[in-house]
């Protein structure tokens, strides 16, 4: 019999692996709608307020051969992989698909979905890019009001302030708990691995957060007494865009190092900021998404995300960082040199890896291993 803590992580894994079955059952159980979203800029608060289950559309890490007719292959594998899942019917249970404006890659996946996959409800939220301007929050508040109306029209049910408070409470709680758990990655050795942390976040994006919160509460009680024995004490950070490549995390951590923090929209970036209460609920939500740790596609003219990554690297006391670049992701690719420089200035070495449809571990292993050797310097052999 497993200790409870292992069961919790097993539950996270199971939720990810069986996410389609989960959503299907949830639907039958509750009789409510399930909506797929492509980018974390979709305000899930409003969907929870409408008793809708938002699930993030993620890929499968198989070469997306069937998307060729719809998306030119120079767009990132993630957006094509997502669309491929839809085309293959993996998401047939969805009642709607919603995209919160970020990159044009995912925008394409959204439009192809809307045009080629039977779906009852499709909505594109014009999330502002100018998040550093003072005009963004008032504008986005109106844009959210429009989205709210549209959902109400679709479900035929008004969304009250109380509903919105409920949505905000569920999301905030989830974020808070995941942040608290992340704290335990600061200690040495950390109390959870990078893979476990990734599986925690990914599962949060595909299941009912109320259920997820219960798991997190338990995990939080158990964690303090957990002893992780890691043969090496190399503390790694992983930085990049969307990343749900669990195999890669596992392989790297099997080489001895441990990921102690990340900067991904499938990681800390997803739960770093809460909604701060305001009389106008929509304005409060708008503020959260405008002021959250940004996706580079919205992070200009100042490079605030890089500063955030640097702070994380300091707080979590990392030795080195792997910078993964989803091939063709311009917003992240553009920031690689300044990111590398900023981390170097605080003495954190980086190594760039280009991620594609599938990760060629044979090739990457040498790079990662050599990077780890460089961090330790193989001192004893000189």
């Amino acid at each position: 019999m497993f200790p409870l803590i292992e069961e919790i992580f097993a539950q996270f894994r199971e939720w990810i692996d069986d996410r389609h079955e989960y959503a299907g059952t949830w639907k039958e159980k509750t009789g409510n709608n399930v909506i797929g979203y492509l980018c974390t800029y979709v305000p899930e608060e409003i969907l929870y307020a409408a008793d809708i289950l938002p699930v993030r559309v993620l890929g499968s890490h198989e070469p997306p051969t069937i998307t060729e007719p719809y998306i030119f292959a120079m767009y990132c594998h993630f957006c094509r992989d997502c669309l491929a899942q839809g085309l293959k019917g993996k998401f047939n249970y969805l009642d709607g698909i919603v995209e919160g404006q970020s990159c044009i890659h995912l925008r394409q996946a959204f439009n192809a979905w809307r045009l080629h996959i039977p779906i009852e409800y499709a909505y594109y939220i014009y999330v502002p890019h100018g998040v550093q301007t003072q005009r963004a929050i008032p504008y986005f508040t109106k844009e959210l009001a429009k989205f709210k109306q549209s959902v109400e029209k679709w479900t035929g049910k008004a969304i009250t302030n109380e509903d919105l408070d409920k949505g905000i409470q569920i999301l905030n709680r989830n974020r808070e708990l995941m942040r608290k758990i992340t704290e335990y990655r600061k200690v040495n050795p950390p109390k959870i691995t990078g893979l476990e942390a990734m599986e925690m976040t990914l599962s949060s994006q595909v299941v009912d957060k109320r259920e997820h919160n219960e798991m997190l509460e338990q995990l939080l009680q158990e964690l303090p007494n957990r002893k992780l024995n890691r043969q090496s004490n190399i503390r790694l950070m992983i930085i990049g865009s969307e990343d749900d490549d669990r195999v890669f995390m596992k392989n790297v951590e099997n080489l001895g190092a441990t990921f102690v923090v990340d900067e991904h929209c499938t990681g800390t970036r997803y739960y770093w900021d809460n909604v701060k209460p305001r009389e106008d609920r929509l304005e409060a939500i708008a503020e959260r998404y405008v002021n959250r740790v940004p996706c580079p596609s919205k992070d200009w003219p100042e490079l605030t995300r890089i500063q955030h990554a640097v702070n994380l690297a300091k707080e979590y006391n990392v030795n080195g960082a792997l910078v993964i670049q989803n091939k063709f992701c311009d917003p992240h690719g553009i920031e690689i040199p300044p990111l590398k420089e900023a981390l170097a200035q605080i003495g954190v070495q980086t190594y760039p890896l280009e991620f594609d449809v599938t990760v060629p571990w044979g090739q990457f292993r040498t790079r990662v291993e050599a990077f780890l050797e460089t961090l330790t310097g193989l001192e004893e052999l000189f």
Partner: protein
Amino acid sequence: MTAGVDVGAKFAKVVILKDGQVIARAKALVGFDLLKSASDVFEIALKDAGLSRNDIQRVVATGMGGNAILQKPPINADEAVSVIVAGAAGAYQVVPSVRTVIDVGAEEGRGIKVEGGKVKDFVINERCAAGAGTFIEAMARALEVKVEDMGQMSLKSVNAIPMNAQCCVFAESEVVSLIHSKVSKEDVSRAIHDAIAGRISSMVLRIGVEKDVVLIGGCALNAGFLPPLEKELHTSIIVPEFPEFVSALGAAVIAANPTR
């Protein structure tokens, strides 16, 4: 009597037609001197048929090197047509019900939508030969098996391993790492064939797949290639006899009907 000469990236192929019947076929590797390579094969074909150049009314050239023999002795091809048009005509000749032609040669994969032997739409792989014969050869070398044997080998495999076949050489190194991680040669060859099939099918899907589907070109000779391709495209595929000669045949057919 007409002849079709297909000067491909690796082989030159010749077909001689007499009243719609094939009376000679020949192929040989292409050297740098396209004209010479083509002429040599042409001679062999003539010899087989016991003919001389003058017995042939019209010669149509096709393939990447087709223009090299246009109006140049000894062949003096009367016309050069693209391998797309020739492939469509040839496939139509051997399978009149054909609507989609998949032509996989040494360096190029092509998909052609056909109606009554005429081209409706087509697609050719751009910039990467990961879906072509050269790729299989490189992989065979990495695997240290004969190209001919690879197809059969792959059929023995029971495990599918997804492989990233973006770049020929890179895929090769991936093969090497698969070998190093002790994956059986059978499974590796299957991974390779699946990868190519995936690449070809994703390309062909751009023009849409309608039955009957005919597979031509050198790669059609490879037994391991057909099953994954049929699986990827969810359709049965017809492989005619002498698939690598179909474009040459098409050229010969076109030569026979100058006023098509």
